[in-house]
């Protein structure tokens, strides 16, 4: 009964709604009264539909749904599904298929840019043997595909290359292997390169097909990236007969089926990229250090980020032909690597390759630097880094944030370990140049000479004379001079002269006292300096004595033995007496020396 009433009410309402426009038009200007009617629907009817279903057919799946894996970042591409377009051309044994398209992202899509993105190729992977991707930044309006026989996606005109990838078509793994993979006949490439909004880029692919396959690519009916640029340049190259090549260039007024997954932002040209690195994985890049002379120390500083702020890594600097120049390592670099060789580097290659090998598994954030100006981008050698993980190289098309400098001394990270402290220059006392060494040395030489003349005192004379010669030589080395002073001005006037003389006398007396003091100080210093030398000379003299005296005595003893063996007792007695006499002489000499000495 209620249902009947409700149906009646609905029918009435519909009738009113059909008539109402006519009434309102007719009664234009008359104030309309608004009635609000709330329908109370019983709960048993409210639960009839428990879920929402997508009523669209399979053909209506949107383009991002065809991605494998599903996009992780900001997805850019045609929203409707792309159409597969097969060309008439059949691939000969030698063939090239080029597809290139200009794209300019806007800041609504990627803010100021991205540093890591995945690009899906518009070329269907079916029948493709090799594929290459090249990304060019544009500096002007004009560009075109270069030589069609070239397999490296050549683009000519106002462009310079910023990144590229040689795609391994057998790689189907998304996470493992190289940065490219193929799934469902679509080829994806992860590129670590700075892409800016507001700058036009040409994405160019070259595919080499297996023989007898047809060139196939996806086309989009929409403007990719909404940049108001919808054109696709196609280049086909085949060799159907000997000496006959077919080259065909086409310009399509639609965009190719490219789509992008923008993974990582760009910061302001400086960004960090995180890599999980196992022991043995490396970061490698090239730097220019220019020409220098001498043997300066090389210093490389590379900031990084890890969970605990430290990194166990070895730095090896090599020539561009991979010959090691120097190496440095640390089990715990803190916040930044500051590597320096233990000695200066004399050879000077203009460019070197820095290789950082991680020695323990760690997630490492390396910091990369780029500039939208394009200046840094022009030199591909210096504006790229290679991160090798598990033997697979991943190229980052930007300069790792680092500083390679030359230093006059060894540079080390701040450390509390005394072994890490830099060598400190030894303190050298500036010794005053004087002539005491010369005077005392000369006296010592004279005394030594006199002792040598006595004969018996010759060894001591040699010692003293030698020591004197050493003193003179040392004094000359220090720059000592024998004559030092000026002639006072006698002739100014008598009083002044007397006054000056008195002052000079006073100064002379003062200087005598000073000289005595200096002399005593010097003698103490000299004893310190020369005592080891004198001791050494004494040791040599004693050694000579201890060597020759026993030999002499042995010769004499054997002389006695021989005389005895000859039965000549008299001669033996004479030899013995001779030996005894010489021993006595030595003792007497020693006594005499002792008497002279004391």
């Amino acid at each position, binding site marked *: 009964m209620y249902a009947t009433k409700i149906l009646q009410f609905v029918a009435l309402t519909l009738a009113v709604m059909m008539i109402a426009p006519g009434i309102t038009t007719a009664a234009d200007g008359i104030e309309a009264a608004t009635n609000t009617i709330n329908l109370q629907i019983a709960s048993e009817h409210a639960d009839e539909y428990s879920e929402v279903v997508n009523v669209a057919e399979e053909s209506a799946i949107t383009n991002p749904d065809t991605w494998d894996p599903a996009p992780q970042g900001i997805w850019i591409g045609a929203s409707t599904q792309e159409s597969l377009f097969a060309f008439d051309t059949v691939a000969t044994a030698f063939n090239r298929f080029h597809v290139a398209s200009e794209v300019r992202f806007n800041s609504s899509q990627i803010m100021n840019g991205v540093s890591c993105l995945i690009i899906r190729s518009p070329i269907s992977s079916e029948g493709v043997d090799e594929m290459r991707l090249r990304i060019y930044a544009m500096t002007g309006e004009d560009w075109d595909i270069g030589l069609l026989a070239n397999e490296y996606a050549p683009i000519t005109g106002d462009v310079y290359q910023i990144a590229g990838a040689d795609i391994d078509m057998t790689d189907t793994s998304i996470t493992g292997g190289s940065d490219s993979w193929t799934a469902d006949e679509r080829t994806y490439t992860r590129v670590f390169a700075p892409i800016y909004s507001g700058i036009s880029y040409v994405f160019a692919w070259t595919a080499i097909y297996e023989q007898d396959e047809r060139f196939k690519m996806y086309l989009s009916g929409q403007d990719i990236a909404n940049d108001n640029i919808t054109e696709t340049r196609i280049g086909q190259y085949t060799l159907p007969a000997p000496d006959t090549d077919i080259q065909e260039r086409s310009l399509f007024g639609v965009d190719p089926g490219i789509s992008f997954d923008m993974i990582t932002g760009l910061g302001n040209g400086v960004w960090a990229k995180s890599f999980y690195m196992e022991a043995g994985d490396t970061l490698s890049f090239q730097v220019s250090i220019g020409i220098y002379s001498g043997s300066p120390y090389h210093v490389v500083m590379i900031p990084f980020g890890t969970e605990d702020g430290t990194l166990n890594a070895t730095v090896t600097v090599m020539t561009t032909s991979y010959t090691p120049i120097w190496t440095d390592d640390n089990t715990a670099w803190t916040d930044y690597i500051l590597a320096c060789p233990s000695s200066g580097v004399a050879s000077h290659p203009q460019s070197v390759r820095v290789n950082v090998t991680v020695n323990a598994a760690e997630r490492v954030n390396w910091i990369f630097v780029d500039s939208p100006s394009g200046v840094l981008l022009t030199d591909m050698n210096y504006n790229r880094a290679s991160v090798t993980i598990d033997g697979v190289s991943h190229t980052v098309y930007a300069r790792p944030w680092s500083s390679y400098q030359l230093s006059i001394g060894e540079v080390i990270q701040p450390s509390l370990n005394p072994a890490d402290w830099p060598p400190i220059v030894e303190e050298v006392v500036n010794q005053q140049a004087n002539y005491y060494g010369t005077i005392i040395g000369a006296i010592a030489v004279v005394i030594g000479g006199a002792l040598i003349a006595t004969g018996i005192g010759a060894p001591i004379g040699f010692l003293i004379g030698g020591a004197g010669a050493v003193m003179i030589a040392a004094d000359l080395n220090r720059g000592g001079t024998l004559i030092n002073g000026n002639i006072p001005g006698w002739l100014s006037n008598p009083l002044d002269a007397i006054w000056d003389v008195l002052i000079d006398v006073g100064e002379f007396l003062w200087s005598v006292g000073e000289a005595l003091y200096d002399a005593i100080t010097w003698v103490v210093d000299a004893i310190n300096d020369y005592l080891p030398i004198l001791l050494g000379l004494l040791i040599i003299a004693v050694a000579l004595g201890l*060597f020759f005296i026993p030999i002499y005595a042995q010769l004499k003893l054997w002389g006695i033995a021989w005389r005895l*063996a000859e039965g000549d007792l008299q001669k033996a007695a004479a030899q013995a007496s001779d030996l005894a006499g010489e021993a006595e002489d030595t003792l007497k000499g020693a006594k005499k020396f002792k008497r002279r000495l004391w």
Partner: protein
Amino acid sequence: MDFLAIAVWIFDFLVLDLLPFVSMVLLVLGIFGVINRLPDTITNYAKRQGAGLARAFKGNKRR
């Protein structure tokens, strides 16, 4: 190496190395010399003793 170390090295070399070596050489030469001389000496001694004995016997006859 400073001068004192050189002096000590010279001492070690002369006294501890060269002296024993030279002494051994002298010992060999000395013993050789003694052995060389002994036979003549013993022969001379025997001859002398023999001559003495002969003289003694002659003297007895003279008496």
